């Protein structure tokens, strides 16, 4: 069953990679949220936004940051509201930041108790019925009336999201069982006025929210905790590491995953085909998921045709060795300081194979301009 689900990931990866533009990205985190994770997600997103916006868009960058904070706080707030944590394990929440051309989308999805839906919905409908001036007034009224004492229950955060984005809020409820419903919320920020506004009554506008819901469903089905589609550089590698490190309760597995992740992503950064703006990084996708007792790490990026042979040779080489031989080979390479043999398999793949639970899985897919989409997958046994 595990094999089958990985296969799906290989099939879907290129479609996802290809659906975004060159300086676009979509980052999705699914699972448990805590203060640390929230902080690291913000750093990851903010760094990436800084790479693709110029100084004149500083205000936009601040607003996006602000809305991300509100969204993430909404999730942790709802998480705290539901006393029994096991419901959160059963129905993990999601946070997504996407840049699609001239639009940024910030989306959240989390469970709420069914009996809270009506109140939430009416709050959102009131907010969406108000223009910017009325929102300002409404904000002041709520502050003055002091009804914020019930822990943000008055919807100040929602009002601020609508104000900062200058847009209506898209939302949707998906019933899960007799107790809980997934509550999805999306805010859109245009990079300039040409990209317009959101009309919640227009069903076409819901496409962007529907796509996040679909992603969430797929990530639930594959048990993916992290989906990263954008450009890789050393900065976001460090942020991704920090996110992994902030997940609770799995210290040993976390170390292993981090080690494997560093090698996989630095391999992309070093050898992957760059985007036309090299300073941004190397375009690629990365997934982290859980199947049975294994953590599965999958990466995908574009390579030139001439790299195909050398990469497959190297991967076949390390896959063909026993763990003992791999260890001896590692020593050889470690002590080989003057090898000019560029064809020699390096420490990266050797180390990945040593740390991976099973042979390194790979695949090359044809893409339009005669280059290849290179998929690599490793598996780390989950240990408590």
């Amino acid at each position, binding site marked *: 069953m595990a094999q089958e689900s990985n296969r799906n990931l290989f099939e879907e990866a290129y479609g996802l990679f290809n659906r975004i533009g060159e300086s676009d990205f979509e980052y999705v985190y699914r699972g448990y949220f805590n203060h640390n994770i929230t902080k690291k997600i913000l750093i990851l997103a903010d760094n990436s936004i800084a790479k693709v916006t110029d100084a004149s868009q500083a205000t936009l960058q601040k607003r996006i940051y602000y809305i991300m904070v509100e969204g993430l706080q909404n999730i942790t707030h709802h998480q705290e509201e539901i006393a029994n944590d096991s419901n959160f394990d059963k129905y993990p929440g999601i946070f997504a930041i996407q840049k699609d051309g001239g639009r940024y989308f910030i989306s959240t999805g989390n469970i709420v108790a069914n009996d809270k839906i009506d109140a939430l919905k009416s709050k959102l409908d009131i907010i969406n019925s108000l223009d910017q001036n009325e929102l300002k007034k409404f904000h002041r009224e709520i502050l003055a009336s002091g009804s914020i004492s019930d822990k943000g229950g008055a919807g100040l955060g929602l009002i601020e999201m609508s104000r900062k984005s200058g847009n209506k809020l898209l939302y949707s409820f998906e019933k899960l069982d007799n107790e809980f419903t997934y509550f999805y919320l999306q805010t859109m920020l245009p990079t300039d006025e040409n990209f317009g506004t959101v009309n919640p009554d227009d069903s076409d506008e819901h496409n962007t929210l529907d796509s996040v819901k679909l992603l969430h469903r797929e990530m639930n089905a594959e048990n993916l905790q992290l989906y990263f589609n954008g450009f890789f550089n*050393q900065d976001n*590698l*460090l942020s991704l*590491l920090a996110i992994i490190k902030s997940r609770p309760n799995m*210290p*040993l597995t976390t*170390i*292993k995953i*981090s*080690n494997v992740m*560093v*090698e996989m992503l*630095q391999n992309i*950064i*070093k050898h992957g085909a760059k985007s036309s703006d090299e300073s941004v990084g190397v375009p690629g996708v990365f997934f982290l998921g859980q199947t049975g007792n294994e953590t599965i790490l999958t990466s995908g990026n574009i390579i030139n045709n001439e790299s195909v042979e050398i990469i497959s040779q190297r991967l076949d080489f390390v896959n063909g060795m026993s763990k003992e031989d791999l*260890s001896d080979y*590692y*020593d050889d*390479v*470690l*002590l080989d*300081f003057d090898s000019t043999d560029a064809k020699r398999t*390096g*420490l*990266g793949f*050797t*180390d990945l194979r040593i*740390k991976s639970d099973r042979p390194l899985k790979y695949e090359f897919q044809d893409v339009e301009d005669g280059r290849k989409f290179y998929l690599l997958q490793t598996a780390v046994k989950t240990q408590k």
Partner: protein
Amino acid sequence: MEKLIIEETEDTPEIILDPEEGKFKISKISVPENAVDFYHPVLEWIKNYAEEPNIQTVFDFDLEYVNTASSKQVIQIILLLQKVAEKGNVKVNWYYESIDEDMKALGARYKKLVTVPFDLVEIE
């Protein structure tokens, strides 16, 4: 000899090479993109230090993450410490957290490959 102090960054370790204080330590995280450039001054420093080392040199590695590019630089440091051992007493301590099998395995690998006294030290 002038000491060499390099402050830690998000992806490079803290380095303290201070003969006067008798402190030699590489700690925290080492996952730079370009490990060769980062470790170049460190290797140069130890090369010079090997000419006229302290009577006793205790060298501590206390690393949390090491990418493979750095692991190749670390072995060069340890091999240079073998040089230092020709003129002085050298001991290497390799610290690893008890749960960190990978860091323990890397230390064991180095220990096997070198002749300099090399201790694997488990910390809680």
